[in-house]
């Protein structure tokens, strides 16, 4: 279980998160919703350790994540699909996937079979450089790369951006499948069409200048929420 308690986060002098709390339980999908610039990505960056949090606490499976470097978090089963893909442009697709092995014990170092069922295009392009892929292909690669680490907590920031509708459906199915097969929590960025209808979980909100918190969606954030959940 991931517990974030009253997290603050600063970019230089500017504060982006104001005491945000969140809990992500195993086997559930947790969504973080909000409009542009509200701090969704910042929260996820704080969780994976890409940006230091400046206040509050963060624990995973009872362990305080504190100031653990990102790779330690990855080795504890937290995988991250960032906004903007951030694949390794000069590595081939295969090599991009293989980087995930670093987080695994030697015995588990193999590519999950489901990977290519989910993203057949990657299979066809194993030896193409990641940076040469189209935007949507890169996004698929980013998700696949995170899955290689066999995470127990998968963090997706706007995961379906740029992906074609048919695959978004598959991803939705896959995530539900993974959740059902146990042990995975999925805080995701704002829900996107594919998962939107099916996302059932805790709702977390944050907004600039105001305290955000679990189950405390207020103001413009609430409007968003309603719209999202209305489908």
């Amino acid at each position, binding site marked *: 279980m991931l517990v974030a308690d009253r997290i603050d986060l600063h*970019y*230089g*002098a*500017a504060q982006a998160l104001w005491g945000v709390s969140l809990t992500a339980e195993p086997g559930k999908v947790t969504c973080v919703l909000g409009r542009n610039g509200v701090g969704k990505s910042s929260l996820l960056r704080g969780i994976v350790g890409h940006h230091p949090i400046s206040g509050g606490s963060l624990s995973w499976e009872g362990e305080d994540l504190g100031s653990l470097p990102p790779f330690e978090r990855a080795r504890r089963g937290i995988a991250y699909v960032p906004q903007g893909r951030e694949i390794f442009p000069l590595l081939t697709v295969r090599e991009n996937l293989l980087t995930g092995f670093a987080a695994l014990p030697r015995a588990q170092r193999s590519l999950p079979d489901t990977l290519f069922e989910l993203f057949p295009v990657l299979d066809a392009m194993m030896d193409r450089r990641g940076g040469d892929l189209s935007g949507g292909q890169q996004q698929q690669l980013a998700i696949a790369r995170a899955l290689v680490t066999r995470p127990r907590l998968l963090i997706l920031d706007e995961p379906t951006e740029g992906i074609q509708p048919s695959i978004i459906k598959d991803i939705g199915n896959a995530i539900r499948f993974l959740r059902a097969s146990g042990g995975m929590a999925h805080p995701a960025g704002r829900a996107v069409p594919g998962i939107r209808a099916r996302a059932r979980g805790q709702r977390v909100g944050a907004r600039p200048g105001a305290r955000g918190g679990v189950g405390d969606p207020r103001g413009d954030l609430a409007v968003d929420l309603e719209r999202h959940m209305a489908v």
Partner: protein
Amino acid sequence: MARAMPLGLGRSGIAFLVIVAAAGVLVPFLNLATPVDSPWHVPTTTVVLFGKYLCFALLALSIDLVWGYCGILSLGHGAFFALGGYAMGMHLMREIGSRGVYGNPVLPDFMVFLNWKELPWYWYGFDQFWFAAIMALLVPGALAFVFGAFAFRSRVTGVYLSIITQAMTFALMLAFFRNDMGLGGNNGLTDFKDVLGFDLQQNATRCGLFALSAAALAAGFLVCRAIVSSKLGKVLVAVRDAESRTRFIGYRVEHFKLFVFTVSAMMAGLAGALYVPQVGIINPGEFAPANSIEAVIWVAVGGRGTLVGAALGARGRQRRQELVHRGASRALAVRARRAVHFRHAVPAEGAARPGRYPPRQAPGAAGGDAGPARNGR
């Protein structure tokens, strides 16, 4: 707020100009008008030294213009500086006339003893000061223009550009080392007597050159200021940030780059032309890639993209070099000191002044006056 300033000067800019102007007036005055033993007296050594720094500052400024504002890391700016210096040196050489050791009225001494029969064509005209002065700007400018026109059109960028500028200055260094070049080979041009009829060994001349250098620095600063605070300056920063994006909104990146590169080269040439009469020698060593790198480093120390910083950085340079060298040679020195009681003829405060590193932390935390923040690209 770190946005580029409108055509005004900004506080640090004005302060800088005031300091330069004050130095340009005061230093010569205190050197010439006060008696040697007065506490107010500025020794000639200092005038020469500071005059040199002013020239370096102008060079640093020119580099900052292309690097700080346009992202062109030129490791060959020393070449433009040296070319300007050679243009002036050639004039000073011609000024010697028949006062050379062989008394040849036309040929400089080094040509006489290497048996040259007549003056090579490229020396023509340099007996005129105005010609040399124009050449000091024109030759570096033309080289930069041609070099830049090729490189920028071919979209040579980043380290590739840096390294070919380095190749350029290295090639020029080797060429100028060649005695066949007719420019004095390794020894370069020396033994200057006077400029425009003023004896170079007179303090008044030195002070004049000092004031001139200060004026050139101030003028250079204003030119740079005008460029970077215009819309052109914004385009330059845009090029630095995302070159191809700038193209897609319709700017011909290569023209902009070429423009600043050429202007910058001419400024470096001017710096060189002022430098040579003050230090009394120009030789191919000035083309050495290390010199250019050093010059770039003054900019780093002063703060990239802050014109004032660049100019100030140049001052710290010599100190730092001495520090580095001495730091490690202390062991030697201690051994020697035990043998004879001698002391280093360096100011005691030499050890106290570290270079000014701009402490930049997390992205976004930077700021500074005129310095656009840099995001690792």
